[in-house]
């Protein structure tokens, strides 16, 4: 295998690290922030499940990103991933949690613009529509879960201490599901642009499991996400914090569960096939933002409680971040591709 591939892949791995650091806050930020679960325990569980999700459920969403812009040169892929990673990292530094999905889409469009390739507007529209659908679906799921759980708690008369212990166990389970869903849905953001130039060979583990070259690439990307979770997510949790709305542990559980379900809905090939076979409207298999799903869920609950307690200033700040991240990534990508091509003499795209 060409070693230069690994060098170029490093930007994807950096993006994976950023995604791990940034999005882990959505999966278990509230659990750690409220001291319900130890960081080391939940981060380890999330790291394992993010790898499982990426390797065994990550294929669907990477195809959609490929349709948006087939980044064909390795140096181009490098810069697309690096620009997205830089955009996420810079936003994180100023304390705004942003969407890696949006950043990568911005980057790919930046590459399309630079390479003079046409952006598939149908795919772009499909992706952008999910940026609206995802928080709405997440909000609806959160409201339904909230009403059901409220009723259940009222009927069960469970002692607060026992309720808390069950919530704690629930938070760990949903963090595992959330991490699996994050891996499955978001791995395309991390290494999706490298799929076209993937040089790996199938990998066999004791003859029991065989990973396709694409899965080997996903494995590497997901390991980077795990490293991000283990090394930097605690800091991200503390920076981004839990300041959008004060959440009780039960609400935190609902938020994480809604987010996990939304991510699974948008990445499950099985569900997609089933809906298609049943002639029902399908959900696009698109990498959606876990941040958007979380915020949709929090706002859903906040609104059903009468809108009180929601920090609208922070909502606005986050919304600005969502618009700024793809634009920033696009700009960084466009300018950097120019330097990469003209200063470092790298081929960043192939002419048709």
């Amino acid at each position: 295998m060409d070693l230069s591939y690994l060098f170029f892949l490093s930007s994807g791995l950096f993006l994976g690290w950023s995604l791990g650091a940034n999005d882990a806050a959505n999966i278990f930020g509230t659990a750690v922030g409220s001291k319900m679960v130890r960081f080391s325990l939940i981060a380890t569980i999330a790291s394992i499940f993010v790898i499982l999700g990426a390797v065994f459920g990550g294929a669907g969403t990477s195809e959609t990103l490929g349709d948006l812009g087939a980044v064909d040169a390795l140096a181009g892929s490098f810069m697309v991933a690096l620009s997205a990673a830089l955009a996420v990292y810079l936003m994180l530094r100023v304390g705004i949690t942003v969407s890696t999905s949006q950043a990568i889409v911005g980057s790919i469009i930046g590459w399309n613009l630079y390479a003079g390739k046409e952006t598939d507007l149908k795919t772009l529209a499909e992706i952008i529509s999910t940026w609206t659908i995802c928080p709405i679906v997440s909000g609806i799921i959160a409201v339904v879960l909230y009403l059901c759980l409220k009723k259940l708690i009222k009927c069960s008369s469970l002692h607060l201490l026992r309720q808390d212990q069950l919530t704690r166990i629930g938070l760990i389970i949903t963090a595992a599901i959330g991490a699996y869903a994050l891996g499955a849905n978001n791995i395309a953001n991390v290494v999706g642009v490298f799929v076209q130039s993937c040089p790996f060979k199938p990998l066999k583990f004791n003859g029991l499991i065989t990973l396709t070259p694409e899965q080997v690439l996903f494995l590497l990307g997901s390991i980077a996400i795990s490293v991000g979770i283990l090394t930097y997510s605690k800091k991200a949790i503390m920076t981004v914090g839990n300041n959008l709305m004060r959440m009780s542990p039960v609400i935190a559980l609902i938020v994480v569960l809604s987010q996990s379900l939304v991510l699974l809905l948008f990445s499950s090939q099985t569900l997609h096939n089933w809906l298609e076979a049943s002639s029902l409207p399908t959900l696009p298999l698109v990498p959606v933002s876990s941040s958007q799903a979380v915020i949709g869920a929090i706002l859903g609950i906040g609104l059903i409680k009468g809108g009180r307690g929601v920090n609208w200033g922070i909502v606005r700040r986050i919304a600005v971040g969502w618009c700024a991240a793809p634009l920033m990534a696009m700009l960084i990508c466009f300018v950097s591709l120019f330097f990469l091509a003209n200063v470092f003499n790298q081929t960043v795209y192939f002419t048709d």
Partner: protein
Amino acid sequence: MFNIKLSIFSTTRDLEQKIDQMHDKVIESSMFFKEAFDIYMREKRSSNYRRVSKKIKNIEAEADDLRREIESSLYIHNLIPDLRADVLQMVENIDKVINEFDEVAHKFYIEQPDIPQKFRDNFKVLVQQVSDCAENMAISSRAFFRDFATVRDYARKVYFLEHESDKTWAALKQEVFESDMELAHKIQLNSLIGEVADIADKAEDCIDAVLIFTIKRDI
């Protein structure tokens, strides 16, 4: 996994029992306080009174131990981290009510006040009201752990009884100072009446805090 789950619940079960016992202590001390007062009215500082007063003292000591055990248990096992401070405050408030019962009973024992016949009915009403107030506070506070609607129902009762006890206290105080007793006697009775009425005030403080915790915790 199964063993871990069991051990997690055994910790909470133990703490649940201790919190329940803490609330039981309020009701016990309230009942013994009423009994002690009745005995005092009949027999003043008799051996009988001493026996009941000692029971209240023991309850108070047991409540102190329970409070310390609950506090350390909450921290050692990292239970309800978001509500830990609230529960600790609640337990401390409950302990203050129990302490007040003990202090008043002890004051009767030490000072042996002479309560003229004409004040006795009102005094008895006041004792009944503050005891009921404390008992309802215990029910409301206990319900915080299981059923928030009950917290509000009994909180209303606590507020009502506290208000009634205030009225009784004011009337009694006026009667005392309008009487022709010696000033020292008037001051002694006034201080005693004030301390009895304080029990309801402390119960009310406890419920104020519980209601805020309920709002914080309500999903």
